[in-house]
């Protein structure tokens, strides 16, 4: 079975899957915004509970979320380290020549890392439970007001969908090429940074080739199926807000406000 990467759709028929994509998208944006105002750990715990509850309801295996996190672990660690060393503070916990680790730095790093984890898992819940086509529709809908400024809402949304579906395919392709080159004696493991970078050239060239070929073939396939932008398109599943969607929207908004209150007041 193929590897699942972040942002990949996990089909299902849970309440979360069925929820209107616009509600989910707005809810996610709201949640992410709220995270930036939450400064204490009780707020983060509230946020984590919120995500765990959503994942439970969506019946998406938890390990998919964990796997998604694993692929961004470096960014997480990097952000945390920067915060540890660059945050000015008085309360020195540990120092070694010019390196000073302060209580403020540690707490800032902890908050930053938690925030990132919540941000990534929160948006993964959205992309795991929403098919890219639905997500496109939702993005297009939310960008609609910008159409008066001649922003090509449909085209932007379509590009995002295709980019997302291509990530998985390109990762598979990279793995295939690396294996093929390794079988020919390529060495990706040893040597300094420059040598390692050089050893990636035989991977990048075929990868670019296959990415461009994919773009070309996909464009032909879309055109041959009469794709001509967003105009006059109908939908197999038109977006329609049902009673449940309104209730869910209220519950989502309520939960985010609750998280904010916990995060700011307690």
């Amino acid at each position: 079975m193929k590897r699942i990467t972040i942002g990949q759709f996990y089909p299902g028929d849970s309440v979360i899957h069925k929820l209107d994509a616009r509600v989910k998208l707005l809810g996610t944006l709201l949640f992410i915004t709220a995270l930036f105002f939450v400064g204490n750990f009780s707020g983060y715990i509230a946020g984590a509970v919120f995500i765990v509850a959503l994942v439970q309801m969506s019946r998406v295996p938890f390990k998919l979320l964990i796997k998604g996190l694993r692929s961004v672990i470096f960014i997480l660690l990097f952000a945390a380290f920067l915060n540890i060393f660059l945050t000015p503070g008085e309360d020195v916990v540990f120092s070694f020549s010019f390196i000073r680790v302060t209580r403020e730095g540690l707490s800032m790093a902890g908050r930053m890392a938690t925030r990132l984890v919540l941000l990534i898992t929160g948006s993964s819940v959205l992309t795991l439970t929403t098919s890219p086509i639905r997500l496109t529709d939702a993005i297009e809908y939310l960008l609609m007001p910008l159409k008066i400024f001649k922003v090509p809402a449909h085209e932007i949304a379509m590009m995002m969908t295709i980019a997302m579906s291509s990530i998985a395919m390109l990762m598979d392709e990279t793995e295939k090429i690396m294996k093929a080159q390794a079988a020919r004696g390529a060495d990706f493991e040893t040597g300094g940074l420059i040598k390692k970078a050089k050893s990636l050239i035989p991977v990048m060239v075929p990868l670019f080739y296959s990415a461009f070929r994919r773009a070309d073939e996909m464009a032909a396939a879309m055109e041959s199926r009469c794709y001509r932008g967003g105009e006059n398109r109908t939908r197999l599943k038109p977006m329609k807000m049902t009673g449940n969607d309104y209730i869910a929207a209220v519950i989502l908004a309520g939960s985010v406000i609750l998280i904010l209150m916990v995060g700011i007041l307690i």
Partner: protein
Amino acid sequence: MIVSKNLCFTYTKPEETSESISFEKYSAALTDININIKQGEFIAILGRNGSGKSTLARQLNALLTPTEGTLWVKGLDTADSDNTWRVRQSLGMVFQNPDNQLIASIVEDDVAFGPENLGIPTEEIRRRVDDTLRTVGMREYALDAPQFLSGGQKQRIAIAGVLAMKPDCIVLDEPTAMLDPSGRREVLETVKALNRGSGITIILITHYMEEAATASRVLVMDGGKLVMDGTPKEIFRRADEMKALGLDVPPVTALANRLIEMGVPVSDSILTVEDFLNDGFIQTLMAGA
């Protein structure tokens, strides 16, 4: 259904200088193609790599238009841009790489992509999606992600996606080239059933002679020209000419041709293993054994 008159095509590359844009021409990809394909035919197109098969397929779908001559699909001139969408609706394309032609990440959304572009009402799209998925035997995979399906299944979904636009003709450009034998069989059987059951014209570009042997007519291309046009029997009898064009005949036909050379009185129109086993001489031979 499809008629062309002296169809020629040359790829061009825009050459941009500071003052003007000129077009550098490559050598001709198609030269003086005259074809006449009727509704309900099952056509196989053969030819070595670079002989112009894909270029011709793209012409039929108005992805490319003739640089000289004319091509009519259902009486519509493909060079007229007012006709482009009607041509593409009535003549669908299935491409070689199953991964690069599925647009959506759920099977039924992908099948719906074409009808959605055509502006078909929602209930009708639903009906078409369900019907076509049943036709290709993929109904129970409607809610799956295509990336987890086999190559043969992906190609059947691509066929369903084209069928949902209710075309009169489907052009398949080497749809089985990246598949394993069982995937090839799945795709070929689906296509044959469509041709027989619904009278849909099939144009199958292939490298597999066994597939071409089951067509009602075979076109052979070489160097951008149409060099042979006839029934599989007529074409595969000319094994030497085929070899000169870099093509084989089906293995069992090659065997029969060798037997004839050696003086064994088998029929000269054997295309499949069944033909061979049903041959009068082979039958008597087996009865004697």
